[in-house]
């Protein structure tokens, strides 16, 4: 299987002037909203420190907290299941639905279920699955994966969405008013919600002390999905556990501000037990998380609370578009997570970065994202996943730059230095540099030559 060529996908996206401009502006506006919102909280940096410390404490005691969560949830009347991988998760969901004869599932947004490809699995088994999150629904109707973990349809302009709804619902394709479009979603999804016989949510957090699954939405669609039907299923990545509600407060104050610059989302919901006469099933999912937990440099990526702030600020993501990564998780957090899902397939992603560090500094849980990106490059080299031409260029560079006389000879000849220096300093591709830029001209004399002439 070949590696995703993120750079090529990005180049294509940039050629689409309309969408690149729209997307970059939208993402940057979210970054600015985040900045304004953080400014309202004087203890912002202290909250970040706390959030990071709580997550690190929890992850370093994860087995104990998982058991505590299971005990609490079970005491409350919920049923707790465990899934080692995506397939097991999907099978458990299918079995639960099957036992109840449930055929119409409504679900709120869950990146975990994207990761597990739950929807196609269920649809292949005769279950109708309706996404109730507006962004997810748009992507579902358009048969496209999410482009952003918080706003799956952020890459679509209002016109694009009007077109999707026109095709799916027969609405007016020329009406791009956002309120009109939101209304279309409401009108057409409401009947499906009302007749659903099962509801599925993800989990933003799972509280060990209380056994509650916490969802955070603007629309209230997790509340609909979790309350309308009597049968409720919650898919929970094992890294979502936090110890108590006292800890939960820290994350709730950070999440929405980091995400879209609001102090809180409209619905912060706590599902602690099944409703009367109902059933609640919680599926704790590993799917590679325990393996990542054991990676010395990369386990802190498990602190992620899926706010999307890193991608909003990432200058590369904003120009590339979220679909360019070809992966469930994209942008900076995607780069450091995806190689654990497929080292060859995602071997190029760590190079889709300028290592500028903005991501790490907006991350509410202080994941050292750009440093992990750098570390992944080293892993790719060790595991021979670096492209041959680049590797060769680096090997040549390593030789020349460790031998002073060789270096001076190579750089003193104008023609040679023009070919050589860019070749290794910027990877062998004068053609690439020159596509949109003029090449710097080598000086008549190198600094070495000047120094020799004037100072030695």
């Amino acid at each position, binding site marked *: 299987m070949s590696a995703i060529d993120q750079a090529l996908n990005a180049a294509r996206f940039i050629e689409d002037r309309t969408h690149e401009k729209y997307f970059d502006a939208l993402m940057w506006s979210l970054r600015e909203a985040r900045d304004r919102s953080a400014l309202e909280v004087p203890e912002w940096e202290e909250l970040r420190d706390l959030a990071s410390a709580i997550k690190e404490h929890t992850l370093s005691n994860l087995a104990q907290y998982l058991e505590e969560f299971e005990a609490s949830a079970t005491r409350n009347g919920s049923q707790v299941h465990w899934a080692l991988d995506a397939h097991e998760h999907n099978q458990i969901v299918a079995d639960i639905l099957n036992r109840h004869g449930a055929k119409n599932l409504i679900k709120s947004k869950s990146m975990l279920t994207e990761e597990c490809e739950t929807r196609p699995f269920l649809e292949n088994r005769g279950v109708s699955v309706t996404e109730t999150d507006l962004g997810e629904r748009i992507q579902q109707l358009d048969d496209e994966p999410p482009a952003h973990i918080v706003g799956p349809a952020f890459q679509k302009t209002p016109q694009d969405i009007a077109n999707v709804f026109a095709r799916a619902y027969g609405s007016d394709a020329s009406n791009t008013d956002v309120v009109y479009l939101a209304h279309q979603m409401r009108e057409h999804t409401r009947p499906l919600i009302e007749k659903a016989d099962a509801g599925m949510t993800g989990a933003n957090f799972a509280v060990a002390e209380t056994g509650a699954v916490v969802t955070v939405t603007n629309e209230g669609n997790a509340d609909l999905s979790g309350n309308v039907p009597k049968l409720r299923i919650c898919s929970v990545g094992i890294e979502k556990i936090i110890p108590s509600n006292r800890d939960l407060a820290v994350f709730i104050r950070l999440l929405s501000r980091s995400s879209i610059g609001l102090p809180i989302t409209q619905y912060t919901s706590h599902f602690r037990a099944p409703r009367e006469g109902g059933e609640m099933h919680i599926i704790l999912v590993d799917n590679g998380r325990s393996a990542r937990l054991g990676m010395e440099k990369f386990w802190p990526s498990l602190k992620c609370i899926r706010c999307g702030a890193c991608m909003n600020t990432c200058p590369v993501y904003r120009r590339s578009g979220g679909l360019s990564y070809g992966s469930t998780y994209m942008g900076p957090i995607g780069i450091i997570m995806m190689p654990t899902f497929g080292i060859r397939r995602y071997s190029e992603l760590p190079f889709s970065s300028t290592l500028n560090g903005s991501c790490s500094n907006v991350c509410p849980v202080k994941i050292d994202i750009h440093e992990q990106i750098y570390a992944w490059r080293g892993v790719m080299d060790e595991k021979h996943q670096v492209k041959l031409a680049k590797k060769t260029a680096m*090997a040549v560079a390593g030789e020349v*730059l460790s031998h002073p006389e060789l270096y001076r000879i190579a750089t003193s000849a104008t023609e040679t230095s023009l070919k050589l220096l860019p070749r290794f300093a910027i990877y062998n591709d004068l053609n690439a540099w020159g596509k949109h830029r003029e090449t710097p001209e080598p000086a008549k004399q190198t600094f070495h030559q000047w120094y020799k002439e004037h100072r030695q």
Partner: protein
Amino acid sequence: MQIGLVIPCYLDVFYPEVGIATLELLERLGVSVDYPFDQTCCGQPMANSGCESDSRATEEHFIRLFSRFEYIVIPSGSCTHHVRNKFVAAPPSAERDHVSQHVFDLVEFLHDVLKVKEFPWGEFPHKVALHNSCSAIRGINMASMSERVHDAEFNKPKALLQAVKGIEFVEFARHDECCGFGGTFSATEEAVSAKMGYDKLGFIEASHPEYIVSSDMSCLMHLQGCARRLGTEVKFRHLAQILNGDRQ
């Protein structure tokens, strides 16, 4: 005080005038400057590609040349960041630690060590857009970053330049967004790199500066390449050249 001067490989070949300005400036300030002639590179290009094994010999060579200095000064934020924070290709040693702990960006050396407050020989009566590299801001903390909204604002390159007579700064949007160079990124992800550069120029040029100035020539090399292709007239200078007395 004697310092070891590092002139990064790309300045050596493409912008020796920046090296000359750095040397002259330090000498004017009474610093005894040693330029180890056998220097080549700090190893960053190979290390940033993940090819640590290929940067090892270069970094070992660097350590051999510079471990005897109390102050190792480089007119480049990205090289300083690399030597201070990522210098791990060579095996651990007291010399390697010493080098990492005694490396300074030129701005840091002037601002924090020499604490220079005046450049009486300097005059630069022009409108300037100051671009601080991501290495300078987030790597070695030479200026506050927009992400940390509660931090007090500070900007060491600007503080130095403000002491030069006649200089006028213009503000511009997204002032600390990455310019898109990113080292090997500029070729491996050419389209995004160029777009970032074009956008950066757009934001800067909306404020109509005559010059774009930085303490990192690598960013300027990239922006200059973009600007020349776009056909704009804005000029580029390294901070050292202005502090050393260039009038234009």
